[in-house]
């Protein structure tokens, strides 16, 4: 069974329609890359998957989204519970104004984990999976704001991993980062996909071609093409996909 099943998703912000009848399946334990020019609805799509769009007063959606077969917009589904299973890393690294340690345990504490030994374990494991442990293990109590951009973003990734989610959503996570930090994050994602499902929005088509197993191309709110990355980049079905990839627009 696919991890996410999206059926005829339409989203609206007030009178503006952001997504038009998007239908796709996201397979488990794979990296799905989402590419497309600015304003194509990629971020809107991502935020619908963890119901972060609920925070916006004018937001409306039509269609169905199933996570492991359950409708995530069903009245019985608590957004709070959903967001522990579907974590998100944002474009701009936003460490919470606390120590590195507190940043990571913020989520687990919410689920009721109290034992210091367990929390310490979680911190080490998450930071290791984000390839950040070695750099910060001696200063876990210093503020998260003191890290460099690339480190902060890996901190944000570790923070999400600490909740042991099933899905990790990333919204242009490397847009402000230098090539080395970018490489570290891409490396982490490639390792992580064996245990999680990863959906990565990126405006860097090269990154998608490096990392993603499958890729989806969004244009102006529509899902234009979706398939194995190799095929999409070498023999795309749609002309528009071809134009975008070869750089004719966007």
């Amino acid at each position, binding site marked *: 069974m696919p991890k996410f099943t999206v059926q005829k998703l339409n989203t609206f912000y007030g009178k503006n329609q952001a997504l038009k009848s998007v239908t796709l399946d996201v397979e488990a334990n794979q990296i799905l890359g989402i590419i497309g020019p600015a304003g194509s609805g990629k971020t809107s799509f991502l935020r619908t998957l963890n119901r972060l769009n609920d925070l916006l007063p004018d937001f409306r959606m039509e269609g169905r989204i199933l996570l492991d077969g359950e409708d995530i917009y069903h009245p019985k589904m608590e957004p709070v519970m959903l967001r522990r299973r579907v974590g998100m890393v*944002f474009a701009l690294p936003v460490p919470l*104004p606390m120590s590195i340690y507190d940043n990571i345990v913020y989520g687990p504490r919410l689920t009721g984990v109290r034992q210091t030994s367990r929390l310490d374990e979680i911190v080490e494991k998450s930071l290791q999976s984000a390839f950040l442990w070695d750099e910060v293990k001696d200063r876990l109590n210093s503020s998260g704001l003191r890290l460099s951009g690339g480190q902060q973003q890996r901190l944000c990734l570790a923070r999400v991993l600490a909740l042991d989610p099933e899905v990790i959503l990333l919204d242009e996570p490397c847009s402000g980062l230098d090539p080395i930090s970018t490489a570290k994050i891409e490396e982490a994602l490639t390792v992580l996909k064996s245990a999680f499902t990863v959906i990565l929005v990126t405006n860097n088509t090269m990154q998608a071609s490096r990392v993603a197993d499958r890729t989806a191309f969004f244009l102006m709110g529509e899902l234009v093409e979706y398939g194995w990355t190799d095929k999409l980049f070498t023999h795309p079905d749609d002309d528009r996909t071809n134009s975008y990839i070869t750089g004719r627009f966007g």
Partner: protein
Amino acid sequence: MRIPPRFSQGIVVSILGLATLVTLSILIFIIGFILEKGLPVVGLGFLFTLPQDMGRAGGIFPTVVASILLPLIAVCIAVPLGVGTAVYLTEYTRESAVTRIIRFGADCLAGIPSIIFGLFGFIFFVTILRMGWSLLSGGLTLALMILPTLIRTTEEAIKAVPNAYREVSYSLGATRLRTVWRVVLPNALPGIVTGVMLGVGRSVGETAAVIFTAGSSLRLPSSIFDSARTMSVHFYILAREGISTENAYGTAAVLILSVLAINAVAYGLMNRFIRRRS
């Protein structure tokens, strides 16, 4: 003959500058005058001994205690109400008729003169609720007086917290309460403290509302149900009844220094808060 613009500007600027100078001089004169006449009287003895002969001699210790306790009580009551209101207005609702009514209430409350608060406190807390002249009556009345300021400063402080922090907290599966308590409020704390200090400053200098609610007993208060005299009330009585000009100056000096110090801390905090944001 047409006066050249540069010339008339020169005249105007001089007049304006003079006006500003006059303003500042007056205000500085007032402080200087009180401090000059009052500081010689003030010493540790003055602050910590009990008054004798209705204040003709001795110190002002009970009034110092009252001036600390009364704002403290007011703050303890006003902070939960004010912060709660501000949190509700910013985090839990959008602008609507209801929020406008709430804000209107707070704005009106802010404009009411202190004598009316005194009348209200006297009728409601002292008489009807039978709390008598007491620190409690005074504290409740002052709490109402400082509530609008607290709501306003807390609202601004909360609004200044970047939205990104909230989004991150929610995306980690936190509830709204958790997000507010763990992320938003701690970040807004300097702004909230500023509002508290401004409220304390106002409470310390307040006289009309306090006389009719906390009374004017010179005895050292032993509980919040006791009547007590604050420094500003004591100063007023000393000055008006002509009991002791010397001690009046001394009390005034302590009053002014306290209020100035409190407000300076408040504005210092506010500036540091603003600078940290940008």
